């Protein structure tokens, strides 16, 4: 293999070499354990980098420095956070339901780690190549809601319960546009397997890739997916369930010490995995953006795209104000659901109109017209005029 290909497959080669040191009957188990250990090591490391990136990025956007005491430029802040959360006293309220209170963060972290099993990180680098891989991911994501309810109810705290109810209502509402907007990619590929979806996007015309985001239905689907993903992971601007100024800390008010760290870990890992799936479905997975950049390894492209997605999420958190609960719900059911259904119809029309420039024009015009009509119709009662500033005299 040439040097480029060997760099591309370096982790696979390493895995096979280590498994080769064991007897034959033990090798499949060793290969699976190695892949699991790699996932358990890599993604929490990315989580640690994400926390420091977020705090510095948010600080800069709010015209202040972020953490800058621990290590040069505050890079070692996650280490300090980890030590703090390990040594803090674990306070469980007296009337709390002990077993459920203990199990809620475990269920969350387990469900989130299971979702990484079908993420194709590079060429040939997926832990389990399931035929219904995407379906598996969304099914596991639905189990997260149960853990949030467990956390909120077992604390016997009205703020926790209220936060849990809001979080569950939000997650259930946004699950429908999330699934519908990802179904377009499945429709055009013809398979639910994540590796096949990435492979279907790996061709190039000239120097431009065949990513689904560069088609009208793919672009609309990608935007809908990103908005629904932000709402699914309770991420700003949809973070009313855990808004610090509204509900203390929502469903994890009564958690302290390491359990709080587990909730934090679960939430950020959920954000990473759903960003990874957005990349897989619409942004070409591990494929290069231009055909002449194919010498960079596939897993490096995946992590670069993941890094871009995380930076985008942090940017949104620092910029947009929080949505109110009824605004959230209206947006999900009245705007995103019709747009997602229309996107399905447009994707079907794309498939059956055949090749050519007509289908680009027709699909784009239909989507843009629907967006403007739906948006204007929903906003006709809002009195939005030009912005006016009032300064102190």
């Amino acid at each position, binding site marked *: 293999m040439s040097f480029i290909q060997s760099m591309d497959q370096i982790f696979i080669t390493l895995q096979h070499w280590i498994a080769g040191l064991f007897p034959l009957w033990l090798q499949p188990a060793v290969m699976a354990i190695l892949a699991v250990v790699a996932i358990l090591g890599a993604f929490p490391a990315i989580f640690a980098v994400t926390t420091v990136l977020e705090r510095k990025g948010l600080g800069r956007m709010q015209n202040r420095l972020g953490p800058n005491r621990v290590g040069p430029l505050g890079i070692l802040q996650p280490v300090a956070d980890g030590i703090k959360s390990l040594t803090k006293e674990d306070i469980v309220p007296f009337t709390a339901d002990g077993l*459920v209170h203990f199990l809620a963060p475990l269920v969350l972290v387990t469900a989130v780690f299971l979702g990484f099993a079908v993420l194709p990180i590079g060429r040939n680098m997926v832990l389990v190549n399931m035929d219904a891989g995407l379906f598996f991911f969304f099914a596991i994501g639905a189990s997260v809601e149960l853990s949030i309810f467990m956390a909120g109810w077992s604390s016997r705290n009205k703020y926790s319960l209220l936060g849990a109810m809001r979080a569950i209502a939000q997650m259930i509402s946004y699950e429908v546009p999330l699934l519908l907007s990802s179904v377009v990619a499945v429709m055009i590929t013809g398979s639910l397997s994540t590796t096949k979806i990435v492979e279907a996007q790996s061709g190039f015309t000239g120097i431009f890739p065949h990513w689904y985001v560069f088609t009208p239905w793919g672009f609309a689907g990608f935007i809908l997916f990103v908005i629904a993903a932000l709402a699914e992971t309770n991420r700003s601007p949809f973070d009313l369930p855990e808004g610090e100024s509204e509900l203390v800390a929502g469903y994890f008010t009564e958690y302290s010490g390491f359990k709080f760290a587990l909730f934090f870990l679960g939430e950020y890992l959920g954000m990473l995995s759903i960003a990874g799936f957005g990349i897989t479905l619409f942004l070409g997975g591990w494929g290069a953006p231009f055909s002449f950049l194919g010498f960079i390894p596939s897993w490096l492209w995946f992590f670069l795209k993941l890094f871009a997605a995380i930076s985008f999420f942090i940017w949104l958190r620092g910029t947009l104000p929080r949505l109110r609960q009824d605004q959230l719900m209206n947006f999900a059911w009245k705007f995103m659901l019709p747009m997602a259904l229309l996107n399905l119809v447009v994707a079907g029309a794309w498939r059956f109109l055949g090749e050519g420039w007509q289908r680009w024009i027709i699909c784009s015009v239909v989507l843009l017209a629907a967006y403007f009509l739906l948006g204007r119709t929903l906003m006709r009662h809002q009195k939005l005029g030009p912005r006016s500033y009032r300064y102190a005299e």
Partner: protein
Amino acid sequence: MIHGIGIVFLITSAITVAGALAAALLKNLIHCVLCLSITLAGLALLYLQLDAQFAGFAQILVYIGAVAILVVFAILLTRGAGIPEYRNVSSSWLVSLVIAAAIFALLTWAVIRSFPATAAGAAPGATVQSIGSALMSTYVLPLEIVAVLLTVALIGAVIVAMPESGAAGKSIEKGGAQ
């Protein structure tokens, strides 16, 4: 008769049965719902062992992700949170035991009667693709009827939850739209 009961099947069915027993016998209603979720997860694992990927994942997505949450909401909105129920033993427990045993015997007889005489050959592939093409060709009428049913349910939910028009409705609306 029954071929190849592996250790995985035994563990999965033990989890399922334990969850179902706990869901019926526990005092705290929310604990019962959580054990019911364990039972539903055990059922999904059984489907997955039989290589029915679509059925297994649909079970997790629909039952654990939606039905369990629905049951939880129903309990919370009607009974409030965190009051353990006192369980009384029913006075007609003998009759209920007889009826339950009769139903169990009927179901067991029906299941055992359906075992093939010889071991089955290669399992028919129930891939997602074959389910999809069957839904679009042979079963398209049930698909459309389910779609109409879902639309009716959605419209019904909106009508039930809609605030009433009129003076009383308007004051409720103004108070609630904060």
